[in-house]
């Protein structure tokens, strides 16, 4: 089965990048929406949640329109940076990141809102700067909720199909991710290949869940301490 390892590797690469992007943008947006008061906050929240409810093919189409070579943004990316997102693995990352975005920013916002503001006030009076207080108090207290969101985002990005197919296509070894390879295998009647791919995907998903459970900070330390 030639398509298996490149597809697996590509899916992991795309999901990892999409998760890293959302770690920064999703968590940042969640924090902004939890703390900042500005007009249009609810409208922004709704807009940013749209990828969760819109069909991935519709999202993919929007992306094609937005970053395609003939669009303003796509043309600028191509002419000045030499970047072409369509039919590239970077395009697959973009699609997966956008589809998974609400899964990070929603729980992140909720987690930040649940942090007791009195603890932040205490940190201020103790002389700690706003930036340090974010990293030393707010983020650690919100981290478990954020981690749950990141995990969902990773799983969603791993399984991304519709938007990725629209933007990146299905080029074996280049943009053909696991999900797309499964679809192609079934379409071509290659049942053995499809079985293999499905099992591999399932195993990766289970492994990711177990790993995330292990990495959850605080839990282990506190259980040890309670003894």
């Amino acid at each position, binding site marked *: 089965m030639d398509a298996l390892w490149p597809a697996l590797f590509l899916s992991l690469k795309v999901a990892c990048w999409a998760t890293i992007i959302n770690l920064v943008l999703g968590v940042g947006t969640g924090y902004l929406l939890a703390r900042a008061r500005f007009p249009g906050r609810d409208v922004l929240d709704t807009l940013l949640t749209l990828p969760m409810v819109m069909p991935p093919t519709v999202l993919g189409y929007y992306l094609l329109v937005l970053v395609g070579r003939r669009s303003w943004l796509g043309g600028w990316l191509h002419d000045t940076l030499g970047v072409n997102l369509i039919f590239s693995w970077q395009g697959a990352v973009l699609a997966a990141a956008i589809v998974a975005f609400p899964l990070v920013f929603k729980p992140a916002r909720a987690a930040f809102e649940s942090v*007791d503001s*009195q*603890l932040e*006030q*205490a*940190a*201020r*009076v*103790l*002389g*700690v*700067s706003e*930036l*340090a207080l974010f*990293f*030393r*108090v707010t983020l*650690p*207290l919100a981290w478990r909720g954020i981690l749950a969101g990141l995990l969902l985002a990773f799983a969603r990005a791993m399984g991304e199909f519709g938007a990725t197919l629209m933007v990146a296509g299905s080029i074996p070894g280049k943009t053909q991710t696991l999900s797309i390879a499964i679809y192609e295998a079934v379409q071509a009647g290659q049942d053995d290949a499809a079985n293999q791919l499905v099992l591999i995907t399932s195993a990766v998903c289970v492994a990711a869940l177990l790993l995330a459970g292990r990495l959850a900070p*605080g839990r282990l*330390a*506190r259980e040890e*301490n*309670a003894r």
Partner: protein
Amino acid sequence: MKLDLHIRRALGKDGQGFQLDVALRTDCQRVVILGPSGAGKSLTLKAMAGLMTPDAGHIRLDGRTLFDSASGVNLPPQQRGLAYLFQDYALFPHLTVRQNIAFPLRRGLFNAAKGSRDPAVEHWLTALDIARTGDLYPEQLSGGQRQRAALARALVARPQAILLDEPFAALDQALRDTMRAELDRLQRELRVPMVLITHDPEDAAVFGQQVVLLRDGRVDTPAAQALAASPQGASSHA
């Protein structure tokens, strides 16, 4: 402690709600602001710490202007050099007692490591008799231990004054008496000026070198004078 404070703040829509208008001036080391709940005690204390910005007025402490609406001065809480003991202590739940006490000693982006030992932290752990709880988390402590930990964290950075928000309200009667005596001793030893807010006249009797009575957002001067004239009158309320 030379404290000169006059703050105004209107809460609620169009100033229809609560009006805070507190003026007080003192040279005492121990000031107690006494009043029923809803009198504006917490707001006054928060204004001193920089956690609430008044609409107008000034706050001067030992020659330093912390807030002055006329000249546009409003120091952030980080620069006021004060300590604040919250009513429910506000210990950081994700940090051990040692890490909590070490918190104000570090300015960077990271908390003290779990295993680290700072002489100042160890000193305060011993001084407040909580050395054995150093590696525990706040949720594993008793009420009295929590208060001691919070007190250690407040004092470790050598504040110019300590602000206490109903420090004994969450404790049972026996523990309340112990902690009162403890705070009394600590304050005398360290000579750190304190402002304590409470609804309990007994606190005022123990700590009130000067007692300020607050009612409906204003200083109730005649009542405070009457209280000062008869210190026994304070405890008879209890």
